[in-house]
C-alpha cells in the first residue's frame, strides 16, 4: 500500500522500499514475510498483490535470500482459482484470501443448503484446492512445492521492461502496459471503490465478466450483434449482415482482440474490381465448424450444421463422442438423399425433435471426425467415414483441460453413440494415453491414416508460446493438417489480473506457426487452420494474412442457427434447443441449414470485398502476407499504447520458392504397409464374404497391422463380416498398434508377443496373442503385450496369454478381454465392456472407472490394496443361482449373471490360447470363483438401476411429453 496521493507514479518507489524492507527483515532473523493489503483505506491504495509478491520474490532470488524465506500473501483480491494459481506460480508459499473468507462468513446464511460459515469456508477452500490440483496436473506438476515459483505463465500485454524487472523469465510477446499503467488501473479501481458513485453506494458494480450487462465489461457478442446476425441469416439480407459485421469489427477494434488492433495496408493503386476476386463459393470451402460434440449441442443443432457445411463444401466436425451411423451410411453406400426427405427419416423419428425437409444431395455426415482422449465412439466405421480425422490435443478455451459431459446430458442416444452408459457423466482427461511424445503422435497419425486412408489427418493444437515448434514437429510426424486454436481473451486493455484463461489468442500462435513452418520449409506439406472466435470476413482475411489456409468457426454458426448466448449450456436448459438434450426444449429449435449457409456466404463476401481492396485475387495469394497488416495508427486506449506487434507481423527470411501455403501431400508410406498384402489375400472375403485363412510372419517393423485391412473391410461391409471370416495367423513379434481398429470378422492370431498399443480402438475384431511355442517360462508371469493395450476399444474380443504392460484397457468402452496379469493403471477411465484378469494387477487399478465390469482373480488376497476404490466397489462373486436369487436382474452386467459371463470368457480364453492358468481355474471352478472379485463402478450400478426404472416409466413420460408445460400453472 502507499498513499493514494502519490498517484500511479508512486508505485515504483514503494516496490523498491518493499524489497529493501524484505531484505532487512530476513537479515534481522525473520523468516516468514507476510505481504498484505489488508490495511488499505481511503487514503492508501493497494499495489496489486501479484506485482508486490513477484517484485519481492524476484528481488530475494537475486539477493540469494529466497530460500531462507517463506512468502505469505494476504490479499483481498484473490477469489478465483486462477488468482491463487498465479500467486503460487510467482512465489507465494501461502495465500490468505481474507476478503473472500469474510464474504462467505457474511453471506453463508443466504446460500442454499443450510451452510454454517465454517462449512462454507471449508467448501470454498476445498474447491480452490481442487482447482489448483487440476491446473497443476494439466501442467504436469505434482506438488505445490514445485509449482510454487515455477512461473509457468505467459504475459500478454505487458511491457518487456515491466516483465524484466518484476516478472523476469516470463515470456511477453507483444509488449503492452508498464508498471505505471498497472498502478493506474489499481488507482482507478480504488477510486471507484471509495468514490461516491451513487449507484455503487449500496451495491456492487453490475459486473458482467461472465454475463453481459449493458454497463458491464464489453463482450463481443452484444445483443445487437446476435440479433443482426440472426436476422441476416434468416432473411438472407447482406445489408443486415453488414450491420452485424460492423458491430463486431468495431467491438474488435475497441480493443477486445489483438486483431482489433490491426489495420489493413490499403493502397488504392493496388485495388481490383470485386469480380476479379475468386467467388465466395470458393472461399467458403475453406470454412469448418468447430468441434462441438453431440451432447454439448443437440442433435438438431449438430446435424443442421453438418447439412449446411456439406452444402457449401466446407466441413463440419463431429466433436468428441462418435456419430450416428445413419448420418453417413447411405452416403457411403452411394445412396443419395432425395429432395424432401425429412431429417427424421434419415436419423430416426425417435431422436429428432425439430424436423425439416432436406434438399436433394444433402448430407448429414460430419466430414471431420474427431479423436479425443476419451476415444468415445471412435470405431473403424466412424474413421472410415471421415474426410478428415482430427486428433484433439487440446481445446482452445481450456487448454490442457479435458471436456466434460454431465450425466444428465448423457441420454440413451448419446450413450449409444459414445458406447457408454446413459446417465453416467463422461470425463475426457487431458492426456491421450497413447501420446506421450511426438513419436507417439506420429504413431497415432499413422494408425489413423491406415484405417482412414482417404482422409487427411489433422492435429489440433492450442495457441501458446512454442506452438510453432510443436507444429513443426506435427508436420514432421506426417500430419496433413494442423489447427491452431486460440482462446479469445484479454489484451492490453483488460486488467491483466483478469486474463482468466490459459493459452493465447490465435493471432500469436498462428503467426508463430507460419513463421516456424516456413523457415523449416515444412509449410508446403501441411494445411493450417486457425480457429477461435472467428466472426466476420475481416477475421477470415486476417487469419489468412497471418498464415491460415482455412478458418474454423464455432459460436457464430451456432448463433446463426438460433443460439442466443444464454451461457446456460451446462444447465441443459437452453431455451432455443441448441445446447440441450431435453426433448421439450429441442422441439423449439428453429435453425435451418440455409441460415448457416447464408451466414458463411456473407462472411466470404465480406472477405472478398476486403481482398478486392487489397488487390488479392485468390485466397492462396493472401496466405502469410503479414506485410499487408499494419498496427493500427494511434492506438488510443491508455492501456494499449505500449503494444508492439513487430514480431507478430514479421515475415520469415526464406527464399521465394519456399511454400507459404499448402501445396503438396505428405508421404505416409501406406504402400509399404503389410496390410497391402493382407488386403490382397483377403479379397475373396472383402468382395464376396468368403472365408479366408492367411499365414503371415509378424515383424515389429510392421506397424498397425490389420488397420488398413479393417478400413477396407468396413468400406465394403459397414457392419463387418461374420466372425472369423478373415483369419490371419502370424508368428513372431507384432509391431506397435498390432490389431488397431480391427473390424468385426477379422481374427489376428499371433504366436509370439506384441508391442505397445495392441488392439487400440478394437472395433469388433479379435486379437489373440499366445507365447511362442519355444517359450518355456510361466506365461502367467511374463509380459506378452506392451503398454496401453486395447486403449479405447469399443467392441470385439482380446485374449492374451500372459501379462500386459501398463494402462491395460484404459478407456475400454465395449470390448471383452482376458489377460493373465496387468501393469499399473489397468482399466483406468473404463466406461464399458468386460475385463478379466487371471493374475496380479498393478497399482491404481480401475481409477476413474465409470462403467463396465472387471473380474479379477485375487491370487494373493491383496487386490483391494492395488485397486483404486474411489469410484468402484469390490464385490464377492456370487454363484449364478445365488445371484439370481438375491439380486435384481436390472443391475446384471449385460443382462447375465457374473458367473455365466466369467466362465464363458475363461473357457474362450482357454480355447484360443491354451492357457494353463485358465485350465487350472476351470478345473477347480467353485473354489476359483470365490477367489474372483468383481469390480463394479458405483456410477454404473446407479445408471443400470435408473435405466431399468426409466424403461418402466417410459410410458408415463411419453404421456407427460404430450404437453409442453407439464407442471404447475401460476
Amino acid at each position, binding site marked *: 500500500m502507499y498513499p493514494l496521493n502519490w498517484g500511479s507514479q508512486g508505485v515504483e518507489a514503494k516496490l523498491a522500499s518493499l524489497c529493501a524492507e524484505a531484505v532487512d527483515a530476513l537479515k534481522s532473523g525473520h523468516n516468514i514475510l507476510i505481504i498484505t493489503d489488508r490495511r488499505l483505506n481511503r487514503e492508501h491504495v493497494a499495489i496489486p498483490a501479484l506485482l508486490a509478491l513477484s517484485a519481492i520474490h524476484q528481488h530475494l532470488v537475486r539477493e540469494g535470500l529466497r530460500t531462507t524465506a517463506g512468502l505469505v500473501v494476504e490479499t483481498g483480491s484473490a477469489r478465483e482459482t486462477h488468482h491463487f494459481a498465479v500467486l503460487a506460480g510467482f512465489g507465494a508459499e501461502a495465500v490468505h484470501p481474507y476478503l473472500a473468507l469474510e464474504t462467505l462468513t457474511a453471506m453463508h446464511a443466504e446460500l442454499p443448503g443450510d451452510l454454517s460459515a465454517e462449512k462454507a469456508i471449508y467448501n470454498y477452500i476445498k474447491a480452490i484446492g481442487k482447482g489448483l490440483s487440476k491446473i497443476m496436473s494439466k501442467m504436469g506438476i505434482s506438488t505445490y512445492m514445485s509449482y510454487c515459483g515455477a512461473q509457468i505463465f505467459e504475459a500478454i500485454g505487458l511491457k518487456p521492461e515491466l516483465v524484466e524487472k518484476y516478472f523476469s523469465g516470463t515470456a511477453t510477446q507483444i509488449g503492452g502496459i508498464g508498471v505505471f499503467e498497472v498502478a493506474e488501473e489499481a488507482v482507478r479501481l480504488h477510486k471507484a471503490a471509495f468514490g461516491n458513485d451513487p449507484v455503487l453506494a449500496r*451495491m456492487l458494480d453490475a459486473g458482467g465478466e461472465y*454475463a453481459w450487462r449493458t454497463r458491464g465489461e464489453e463482450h463481443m457478442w452484444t445483443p445487437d450483434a446476435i440479433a443482426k446476425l440472426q436476422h441476416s441469416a434468416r432473411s438472407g439480407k447482406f445489408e443486415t449482415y453488414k450491420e452485424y459485421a460492423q458491430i463486431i469489427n468495431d467491438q474488435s477494434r475497441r480493443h477486445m482482440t489483438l486483431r482489433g488492433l490491426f489495420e489493413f495496408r490499403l493502397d488504392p493503386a493496388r485495388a481490383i474490381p470485386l469480380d476479379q476476386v475468386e467467388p465466395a463459393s470458393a472461399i467458403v470451402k475453406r470454412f469448418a465448424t468447430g468441434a462441438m460434440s453431440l451432447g454439448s449441442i443437440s442433435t438438431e443443432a449438430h446435424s443442421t450444421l453438418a447439412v449446411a457445411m456439406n452444402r457449401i463444401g466446407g466441413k463440419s466436425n463431429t466433436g468428441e463422442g462418435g456419430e450416428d451411423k445413419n448420418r453417413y451410411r447411405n452416403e457411403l453406400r452411394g445412396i443419395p438423399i432425395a429432395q424432401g426427405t425429412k431429417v427424421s427419416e434419415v436419423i430416426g423419428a425417435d431422436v429428432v425433435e425439430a424436423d425439416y425437409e432436406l434438399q436433394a444431395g444433402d448430407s448429414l455426415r460430419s466430414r471431420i471426425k474427431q479423436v479425443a482422449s476419451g476415444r468415445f465412439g471412435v470405431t473403424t466405421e466412424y474413421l472410415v467415414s471421415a474426410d478428415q480425422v482430427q486428433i484433439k490435443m487440446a481445446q482452445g478455451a481450456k487448454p490442457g483441460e479435458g471436456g466434460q459431459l454431465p450425466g444428465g446430458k448423457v441420454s440413451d442416444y448419446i450413450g449409444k453413440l459414445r458406447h457408454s452408459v446413459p446417465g453416467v457423466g463422461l470425463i475426457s482427461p487431458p492426456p491421450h494415453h497413447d501420446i506421450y511424445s511426438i513419436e507417439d503422435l506420429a504413431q497415432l497419425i499413422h494408425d489413423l491414416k491406415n484405417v482412414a486412408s482417404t482422409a487427411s489427418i489433422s492435429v489440433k493444437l492450442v495457441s501458446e508460446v512454442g506452438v510453432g515448434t510443436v507444429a513443426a514437429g506435427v508436420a514432421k510426424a506426417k500430419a496433413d493438417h494442423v489447427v491452431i486454436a486460440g482462446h479469445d481473451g484479454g489484451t492490453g486493455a483488460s486488467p491483466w489480473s483478469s486474463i482468466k484463461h490459459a493459452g493465447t489468442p490465435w493471432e500469436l500462435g498462428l503467426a508463430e506457426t507460419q513463421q516456424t513452418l516456413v523457415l523449416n520449409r515444412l509449410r508446403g506439406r501441411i494445411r493450417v487452420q486457425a480457429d477461435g472466435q472467428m466472426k466476420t470476413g475481416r477475421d477470415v482475411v486476417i487469419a489468412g494474412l497471418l498464415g491460415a489456409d482455412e478458418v474454423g468457426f464455432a459460436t457464430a454458426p451456432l448463433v446463426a442457427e438460433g443460439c442466443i448466448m444464454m451461457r446456460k449450456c451446462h444447465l441443459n436448459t437452453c*431455451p432455443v434447443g441448441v445446447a440441450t438434450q431435453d426433448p421439450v426444449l429441442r422441439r423449439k429449435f428453429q435453425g435451418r441449414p440455409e441460415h448457416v449457409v447464408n451466414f458463411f456466404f456473407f462472411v466470404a463476401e465480406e472477405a472478398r470485398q476486403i481482398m478486392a481492396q487489397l488487390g488479392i485475387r485468390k485466397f492462396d495469394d493472401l496466405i502469410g502476407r503479414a506485410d499487408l497488416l499494419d498496427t493500427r495508427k494511434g492506438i488510443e486506449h491508455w492501456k494499449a499504447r505500449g503494444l508492439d506487434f513487430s514480431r507478430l507481423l514479421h515475415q520469415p527470411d526464406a527464399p521465394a520458392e519456399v511454400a507459404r501455403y499448402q501445396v503438396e501431400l505428405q508421404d505416409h508410406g501406406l504402400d509399404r504397409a503389410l496390410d497391402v498384402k493382407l488386403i490382397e489375400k483377403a479379397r475373396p472375403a472383402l468382395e464376396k464374404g468368403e472365408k479366408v485363412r492367411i499365414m503371415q510372419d509378424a515383424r515389429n517393423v510392421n506397424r498397425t497391422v490389420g488397420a488398413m485391412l479393417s478400413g477396407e473391410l468396413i468400406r465394403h461391409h459397414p457392419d463387418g463380416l461374420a466372425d472369423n471370416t478373415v483369419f490371419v495367423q502370424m508368428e513372431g513379434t507384432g509391431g506397435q498398434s498390432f490389431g488397431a481398429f480391427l473390424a468385426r470378422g477379422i481374427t489376428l492370431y499371433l504366436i509370439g508377443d506384441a508391442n505397445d498399443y495392441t488392439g487400440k480402438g478394437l472395433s469388433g475384431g479379435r486379437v489373440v496373442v499366445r507365447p511362442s511355442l519355444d517359450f518355456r517360462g510361466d506365461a502367467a508371469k511374463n509380459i506378452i503385450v506392451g503398454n496401453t493395450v486395447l486403449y479405447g476399444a469399443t467392441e470385439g474380443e482380446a485374449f492374451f496369454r500372459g501379462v500386459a504392460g501398463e494402462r491395460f484397457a484404459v478407456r475400454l468402452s465395449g470390448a471383452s478381454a482376458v489377460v493373465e496379469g496387468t501393469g499399473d493403471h489397468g482399466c483406468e477411465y473404463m466406461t464399458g465392456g468386460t475385463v478379466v484378469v487371471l493374475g496380479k494387477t498393478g497399482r491404481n487399478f480401475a481409477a476413474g472407472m465409470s462403467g463396465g465390469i472387471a473380474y479379477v482373480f485375487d491370487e494373493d488376497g491383496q487386490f483391494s490394496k492395488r485397486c483404486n476404490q474411489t469410484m468402484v466397489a469390490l464385490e464377492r462373486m456370487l454363484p449364478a443361482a445365488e445371484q439370481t436369487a438375491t439380486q435384481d436382474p436390472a443391475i446384471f452386467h449385460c443382462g447375465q449373471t457374473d458367473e455365466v459371463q466369467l466362465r464363458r470368457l475363461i473357457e474362450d480364453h482357454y480355447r484360443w490360447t491354451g492357457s494353463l492358468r485358465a485350465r487350472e481355474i476351470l478345473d477347480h471352478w467353485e473354489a476359483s470363483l470365490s477367489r474372483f472379485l468383481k469390480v463394479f463402478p458405483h456410477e454404473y450400478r446407479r445408471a443400470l438401476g435408473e435405466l431399468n426404472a426409466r424403461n418402466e416409466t417410459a410410458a408415463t413420460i411419453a404421456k407427460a411429453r404430450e404437453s409442453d408445460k407439464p407442471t404447475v400453472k401460476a
Partner: protein
Amino acid sequence: MGKITGFLEYERLEEGYEPVDKRLKSYREFVIGLKEDEARIQSARCMDCGTPFCNSGCPVNNIIPDFNDLVYRDDWRNAIDVLHSTNNFPEFTGRICPAPCEAACTLNVNDDPVGIKSIEHAIIDRAWNEGWVVPQPPSSKTGRSVAVVGSGPAGLAAAQQLARAGHKVTVFEKNDRIGGLLRYGIPDFKMEKSHIDRRVEQMEAEGVAFRTGVLIGALAGDGKITNWARETVAAEQLTQDFDAVLLAGGAEQPRDLPAPGRELDGIHFAMEFLPQQNKVTAGDKLKGQITASGKHVIVIGGGDTGSDCVGTSNRHGAVSVTQFELLPMPPEHENKALTWPYWPYKLRTSSSHEEGCEREFAISTKEFMGEKGKVTAIKTVRVEFKDGKMIEVPGSEQILKADLVLLAMGFVSPVASVLEAFGVDKDARGNAKATTEATGGYLTNVDKVFGAGDMRRGQSLVVWAIREGRQAARAIDEFLMGSSALPR
C-alpha cells in the same frame, strides 16, 4: 438466478384489469398489480440469460435479471435498490411503459416473455408502501446551479440526478403543475397523478426547487399549446443566472390535418382535450371543457394518444367512438424470427380499445363537413399502398357522423420559438440538435445549454425521456465538475 426450470414450469400471468363497466365510471387506475407471491412466480420464469436481451432492450438498461432474482428470493429491499440504480421513476414506467424489454426478452423468441413490467410495478409499489423510498440528499454541495426547463420525465430525472450530485437545481414549468405529459397528457386512468406528487415531494427534500407557471423564452403559436404560465423569464436571464441549462420542454407542436373544413368548431387537438380532463380530475374548475358526452366522436390517429382519447371519450359518455388509422391493419402476429429482439410492428389492442371503439384502418379524411360552423360529419376515403405510395381507392368515399373530432396524429417537433429564444440549432426534424455521445453529448451549439427528452429526440416514450434525463445529467455534471460519478 431464480429458478433454473421456472420458465418451463410456470406460465406468464398478465396483470388484471377491473371490468369495463366498473372502470368506465371513474378516472382511477384500473390495473390490478400482481400480488407478491404472483410476482415471485413470474420472476422465477426469468432464465438469467448470459446475454440478457431485456437489459439492452430497456432504454434505461434496467438490470432486469438481477431484480428478478431478488424478487424470486423474496429480497424486495435489494430489488428496489437495483431498480432505482438505473431508473429514477419505476412507478411511472411500471405503469405506462410499453415494455420494449419484454419484446426483447429471450423467452419471447418462442414463448411468452417474462412479465418484466409487472414485476417492476410490484417492486416499486411495495417499496413505496414499505417506506423504502426516501430522499437521498447529497452529502455535500458543489455550489453550482442548474436550470431545468420543463418538468416532464426527462427534466425530472435530470433534476433528481443533478441534485443528488450536489448541484442546486431549479425546475421551471410553464403549466400549473409538475409532470409534463405525465401530468397533462397521459390520463389518470393510466397513471394517477399522486405518483408524481410523491416524487416531487422526495425531490424537494433532496434540494430541487420547482417553479410552476413560469414560461421560459417565448411561446409563439396559436394558443393551441397548453400554456398556463403566469410569468415569463427570458432565455438570456436564465443563462445568466445559472451555470448550466437543460432544455427538456418536450415536443409539443402537434401535427395538423389541413383538410377543408378544418376551421369548424368541434375539431380539436388531442392535447387540447386530454389536459383539460386531467385538470378536472385533479379537482380544478374549468369553464367550457371540451366534452364527448352524448357525441359521436372520431379520433384521427391510431397511436397511443388516440387510444387515450378513446378511453377519455368513453368515460365522458360518448355515443360512439371511432378511431382512424391511415395505414392498413398491421399483422396480428409478428414474424419473431425477423423481429425479435426489436420492437415489432403488429396490431396492438389497448385497454381503451377494449372499452368500446370502432377501429378503421387504411382510411383518410377528405373533408370536415358541418352546419352552422359546427362539425357534423367527416368525408373519408379508403386508401391503398403500392410501392410505398398511397393511393385513394376510387368510389370508396363515405360520410361518417361526427360531433367531436380529435386529432391525435402525433407531434411534429418541439415548439420552435422556445429553441429559438436560446439560439439553439435544430436538426432536420426541428429538434434541439445534440448528440448522445459519451463525451460532449446532449450539449447544444450554445455554451452551457443542454437538451434532452422529446425536445432533443422528438416524440418518444417516458422511459426514453428518463434515460435522456439521466444521461444529460451526467453530461452536465461532467461539464460543471470535470468528471462525473453519475451513471450513464
